[in-house]
C-alpha cells in the first residue's frame, strides 16, 4: 500500500485530490505540518527532490518523489478509482484532461481574484471585467458538457466513483463554494446532483469537510478578500489615473509587467536613514533558528531604540473577515506587496479566532521613527486598512506584546484564541 508525506499549504484543492484518493485506498499519507509556502518549497533540499518547487508534492516512503496533483492521486488510488479495465482507465484519463484544460482555467480565472490569490489590480477596468465574463462563459460551456454526460450516468466513468470524479470535483470545488450562485448553476441539474452526492461521501467529507454551496456570489469588489486593494482604489483615484495615462500605449501589459517595469527606477527609501547598531539580519537568523526563549532576549539586547521603532498594528475591519484562509491570504498578500521593506523590517502578524469571528493584529519593527509606508508608493496599498500605534520600547507592556506576538500565543483584545501567525522577514 502506498504511504508517504504530502507537502502542501492548507485548503489546497489540488492536494485534496490526493487526499481523497488516499481515503478510498486507505493509503497512509501524512501532510507535513511544518510546511510553509514560499519557504519550505524554496529550500534547496526541496528543490532537489521537486525541481519545480510546486506543491502539492509527494514523497513516498520508498523514496519515490512525485509532483502534479493528478499523478499523486493516481499513485495513491486503488483499483476502483483508477478504473477497471483499459476502457475505463482511458476514460478516467480523458476526464482528468477535461478537468485540467476545460474546467480549471476558467474556474481559476473567476475564483483567484475572489480568494485574493491573484491581486485584483484593476478589478474595475474593462479588460478585467471582460476576462471575468469570458471565464464565466467558458465555465458554463464545460458545465454543459458535464451536464449532458451526467444526464444518463450517475458518475463520470463506469457507474462507480473514480479518479475522474475526484479530479473534476476538486477543480470545481471553490467555484461551487464561492462563485457559482444558485442562478448560475440552475441549468446544470445533473452536475449539481453529482456534485452534492460526491460532497456527501464519507471519503470526500473527511478531506474537504462540509461543503456549503455558494448562496451569493462573492464579489471581488466587496472588499472581502482583497480588502486593502479596493480601499486603495477608492482612496487614490488620482494616483491611479496617473498610472493609467502613463501606460496608455502599453495597455496590453498586465499587472506583473507593470510592477516589474517600475522596479529598477525606485530606490530603497530606508537607504537615507542611519544604519544604527541593530543588525536586522542577525536577529532574523536568531529568530528562525533558535527558540523564542533565546531570540526574544537577543532582540532586546541588540535593539537600537535611537534608529529603530516598534509598532503595533490592528486590522480596522475585523467584521469583514470571513474564512481563516482568506484572512491569511490577506496578510501574506500584504507581505508580498511590501517585499522591498523586508531588509529593514520585521513583523509577526497573527490571526486570532476562527471562520467568521476573527481579528488580525501584529507587531512590527523597522528602521526610523516614522510610519514607514508613506515612504514608497509601492507600500501604500494595505497600511490604511490598519490602525498603527507606536510602542515605547522601554515600557514593560511593549515587552509583553512583543513576547506574545513573537511566540505566537495568547488572545486578542476580545479574547479570541491565537489561530495562526505569519512572519515578515
Amino acid at each position, binding site marked *: 500500500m502506498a504511504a508517504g508525506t504530502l507537502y502542501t499549504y492548507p485548503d489546497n484543492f489540488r492536494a485534496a485530490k490526493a487526499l481523497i484518493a488516499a481515503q478510498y485506498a486507505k493509503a497512509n499519507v501524512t501532510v507535513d505540518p511544518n510546511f510553509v509556502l514560499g519557504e519550505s518549497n524554496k529550500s534547496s533540499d526541496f528543490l532537489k527532490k521537486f525541481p519545480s518547487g510546486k506543491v502539492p508534492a509527494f514523497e513516498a516512503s520508498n523514496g519515490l518523489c512525485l509532483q502534479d496533483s493528478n499523478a499523486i492521486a493516481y499513485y495513491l488510488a486503488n483499483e476502483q478509482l483508477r478504473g477497471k479495465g483499459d476502457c475505463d482507465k482511458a476514460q478516467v484519463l480523458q476526464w482528468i484532461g477535461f478537468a485540467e484544460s476545460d474546467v480549471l482555467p476558467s474556474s481559476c480565472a473567476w475564483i483567484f481574484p475572489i480568494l485574493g490569490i491573484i491581486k485584483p489590480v484593476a478589478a474595475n477596468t474593462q479588460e478585467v471585467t471582460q476576462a471575468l465574463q469570458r471565464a464565466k462563459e467558458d465555465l458554463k460551456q464545460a458545465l454543459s458538457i458535464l451536464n449532458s454526460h451526467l*444526464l*444518463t*450516468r*450517475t*458518475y463520470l466513468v*463506469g*457507474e*462507480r466513483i473514480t479518479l475522474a470524479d475526484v479530479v473534476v470535483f476538486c477543480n470545481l470545488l471553490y467555484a461551487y463554494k464561492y462563485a457559482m450562485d444558485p442562478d448560475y448553476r440552475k441549468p446544470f*441539474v445533473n452536475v*449539481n*446532483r*453529482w456534485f*452534492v*452526492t460526491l460532497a*456527501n*461521501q464519507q471519503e470526500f467529507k473527511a478531506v474537504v469537510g462540509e461543503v456549503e454551496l455558494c448562496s451569493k456570489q462573492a464579489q471581488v469588489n466587496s472588499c472581502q478578500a482583497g480588502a486593502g486593494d479596493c480601499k486603495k482604489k477608492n482612496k487614490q483615484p488620482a494616483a491611479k489615473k496617473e498610472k493609467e495615462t502613463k501606460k496608455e500605449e502599453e495597455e496590453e501589459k498586465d499587472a506583473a509587467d507593470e510592477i516589474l517595469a517600475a522596479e529598477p527606477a525606485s530606490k530603497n527609501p530606508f537607504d537615507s536613514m542611519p544604519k544604527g547598531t541593530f543588525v536586522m539580519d542577525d536577529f532574523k537568523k536568531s529568530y528562525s533558528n533558535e527558540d523564542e526563549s533565546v531570540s526574544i532576549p537577543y532582540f532586546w539586547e541588540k535593539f537600537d531604540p535611537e534608529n529603530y521603532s516598534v509598532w503595533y498594528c490592528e486590522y480596522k475591519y475585523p467584521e469583514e473577515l470571513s474564512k481563516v484562509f482568506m484572512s491569511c491570504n490577506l496578510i501574506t498578500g500584504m507581505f508580498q506587496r511590501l517585499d522591498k521593506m523586508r531588509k529593514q523590517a520585521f513583523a509577526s502578524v497573527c490571526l486570532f479566532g476562527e471562520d467568521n469571528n476573527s481579528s488580525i493584529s501584529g507587531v512590527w519593527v523597522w528602521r526610523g521613527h516614522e510610519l514607514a509606508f508613506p515612504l514608497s508608493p509601492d507600500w501604500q496599498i494595505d497600511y490604511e486598512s490598519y490602525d498603527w500605534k507606536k510602542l515605547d520600547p522601554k515600557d514593560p507592556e511593549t515587552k509583553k506584546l512583543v513576547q506574545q506576538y513573537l511566540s505566537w500565543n495568547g488572545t486578542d483584545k476580545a479574547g479570541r484564541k491565537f489561530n495562526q501567525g505569519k512572519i515578515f522577514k
Partner: protein
Amino acid sequence: MDSETVNYLNNVARFLKVEPGKIITDEDYLLRRTKNNSVTKGFINIILQFLDESQSEYCLKHNINAVINTQIWQWLEYCIVYAAQAKSHQSIHQILKELNAILKLKTYLVSNKLTIADIVLYYILYGLMCNLTPIEKEVYLNVSRWFDNIQQDGRIRQTNKLVNFSCNYIINSVASLHI
C-alpha cells in the same frame, strides 16, 4: 400479497447473506416469516429483522441520524404500498413519473448513499424495467440512470439480467432494418 413479494424478500435475504427462513403469505394476506420457531409479520418488519441479523453496513443502527432512518422507513413503505402494487399500465406510469421527478435531484433515494431502500426498490422495479420500451426508458431517464447504477453491483443483481439502457439501441436496430 402474492408470491412476487415473497421473492423480493428472498432476494433481500440473499443479498444480506441471511437465512430467510420460511416466508409465506398467511390467510389474512399478511407476510409471515418463520425462523427458529419465532414468527415475524409484515414486509418492513421482516426486512428490518434481516438487517439486524446481517450486521451489514446497511443496518439502520449504523445511521446516527434519526431523520435518515425515518426516510428509509418511509421509502420501504412506499415500496410495498405503491411500487409493489403497481400492476396496471396507469399505476406503473404513475410510479415511474413520481420516481423520475424525485431522482432528478438525487443520486440515491436517501442521504446521498446507497441504502436498503434503493436495493428493495430495485428488486421491485426489476420486472417492470425489463418490460419498458427504449422510448419509455428515455422518458423516465432519471429512473433509468438510477436503476443502471444500482444494477451494476453483482451482489445486488444476483441472477437478474442487466437491463439494457444503451442509447445505441435504436440506432442499431434501425440500421439492421436497412441492411
